[in-house]
């Protein structure tokens, strides 16, 4: 049982990135009502921005130990702005025209977009996976009962901070209220004078910016490749289903549950490390069968 505190810790730390990735997906689903299959690719593009920044800061600029924090501090706003603009463009030119069409068309569109982004990246930047030798990936911080890399702590702290900031934005700000109004009743919101189309565009951009931030944090955990989007998307989907489609606050709890469940399975079930990545499918099945509206509804 000595592994229990460590299992809980790693499960919790793991959930931060899950929450950030899933929140973006939940926003595009909850506010606009679009199932965005390209969300994982937004994460992937964010990761490339982070990786490029790592190359720039550690190579020509040679900043040494400052590289890790700088990749986060510069990478998140930079990739956020870049992906916001990309997503706003995608919204204007491709998504808006199909918003009133059947859901299948929207799904096919985002699915196509996903294929386009994966292959476009593979052709332009190369298909190989790359590792960033960031100091924080390797230096460990001793917590007494467990040691964790700076990367793992930083990823968790930054992700949770961004998720909470997004909640505050959605709950308190005028824009957040507009988003929630549009999400609840598109026509009603329009009648009271909310510019629905603009709100949609901002929501889609914000969803992509959150994904990009998650991508930058992913550089601290794994290899960067054009194909990392799919795995990311599948987990984000299971969290969104668990939370209840479009339920934004449920995302945090659902992420925590998935993180702990995965860590628990790989720690305590024999052969669990090989089974763990299938766990989200089990969760999706179970939730859809038992409580189709999500756990908290």
């Amino acid at each position, binding site marked *: 049982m000595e592994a229990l505190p460590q299992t809980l810790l790693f499960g919790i730390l793991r959930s931060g990135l899950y929450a950030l990735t899933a929140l973006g997906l939940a926003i595009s689903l909850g506010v606009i009502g679009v199932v965005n299959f390209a969300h994982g690719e937004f994460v992937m593009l964010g990761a490339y921005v982070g990786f490029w920044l790592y190359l720039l800061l550690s190579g020509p600029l040679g900043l040494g130990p400052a590289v890790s924090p700088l990749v986060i501090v510069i990478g998140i706003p930079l990739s956020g702005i870049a992906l916001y603009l990309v997503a706003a463009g995608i919204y204007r030119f491709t998504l808006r025209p199909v918003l009133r069409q059947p859901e299948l068309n929207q799904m096919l569109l985002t699915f196509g977009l996903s294929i386009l982004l994966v292959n476009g990246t*593979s052709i332009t930047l190369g*298909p190989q996976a790359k590792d960033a030798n960031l100091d924080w990936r390797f230096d*460990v911080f001793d917590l007494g009962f467990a040691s964790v890399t700076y990367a793992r702590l930083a990823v968790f702290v930054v992700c949770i901070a961004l998720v909470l900031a997004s909640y505050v934005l959605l709950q308190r700000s005028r824009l957040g209220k507009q988003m929630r109004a549009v999400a609840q009743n598109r026509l009603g919101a329009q009648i009271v004078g909310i510019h629905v189309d603009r709100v949609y565009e901002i929501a889609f951009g914000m969803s992509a910016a959150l994904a990009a931030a998650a991508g930058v944090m992913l550089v601290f955990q794994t290899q960067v490749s054009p194909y990392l989007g799919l795995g990311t998307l599948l987990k984000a989907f299971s969290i969104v289903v668990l939370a209840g489609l479009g339920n934004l606050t449920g995302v945090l709890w659902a992420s925590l549950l998935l993180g702990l469940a995965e*860590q628990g399975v790989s*720690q305590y079930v024999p052969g669990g*490390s090989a089974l763990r990545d299938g766990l989200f499918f089990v969760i999706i099945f179970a939730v859809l069968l038992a409580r189709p509206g999500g756990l908290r509804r």
Partner: protein
Amino acid sequence: MRMHRIVTALVGIGLVAAACGGTTPAAPSAAASATASAAAKPPIKLGALLPLTGPSGATGQDMKDGYELAVEQINAAGGVNGAKVQVIYEDDKNDPATAVASWEKLVNSDKVEVMMGGLASTISLALIEPAKKAAIPMAWTGAAATAFETGMAGQDWFFHYHPWEYQNATSALAFLKSTPIKKWAVVYEDGAFGTGAFTGFKTTLPAQGQELVSGEAYKTGSTDFTALLNRVKTSGAEGLILVPFAGDVIPFLTQMREVNYKPKLTYASPPSFPPDFGKSPVAEGVAGLTLWTADIPAPASKKFVADFTKKYNHAPISYWSALAYTNIVTATSALAKSGVGNKAAWISAMEATSYESPLGPTLKFTPSTTIKHQGFTSLVSFQWQSGKQEIVFPESLATAKLK
């Protein structure tokens, strides 16, 4: 109607051109003739099936670089009997279904002369039946799984370059036995590659008086190994044997630090280490098995490394580029002797191969326990020391001592 006229015109022009070609006088010099025939002869098409993306993508790309370098040199030297060599690459994406489809494309649609490549065992296993159906010359680099060897038994058009897993195991075990470590844990990816290796270690480690105290499988591409490592740590293993793919190596070694697991020796055997692995702080002291390192003193190796570095501005990232280079050079020089489309003659020419390869040993094909044509049969053990792969075993080839 207009279309019809254009087509007629084009056919007419073609006929006139052909007629003129026919009346050209015999070439005045040998050089001009070689150039003319190289231009006139259709290129010789070879197929290469590689994982260019996915967890083994870096290794597959390294192989492709090896092929491209060889093709450039072969064509610069006049090609094969005056015909240019052209390699058609297909990405198997480390996915058996994709690999089978790509195989069919290369064989039936591109109609390649020789099938080359091969890395992951899972992929090669899926190709046994399509390969037997096509029965075309096959100069195959990878796949170490014994199941694949058994599947290809009796096929005289099949030439295999990489040592088989029992040969890998013999080489690895000899090294493991030479260390003072008695208790081992094996962590392996759960595909054919890792499972095959683990099955081997289960019987062979005890057979040489060493204990296997823990065996753990994981799915390649997982980003979190802490729970698994915790269990390995509590098993009391003094040494860790890791059978991963390239992408898993850095997360794995990093997380060993997180759970504070410091075995006396970590022995990792991915098909290749990630690019720039030597520069990462977790590399130091990790030992592994390889067919070759870029620092061996053999002249053919030195030339290969120099040519490779000149073309790509970086050193080969694994032995796979040198193996791929050896693969295409031997397959095409056999083609030069046999001529195109003569399978029996190609097989005889391959059997007569004696090639001083960049990998060090002279390559000859000899029967293994199961197949007729096996190339390399043993590997060396190395350790990452100050960013470089130093050979530590066998002693006769060692460039440094095990730390």
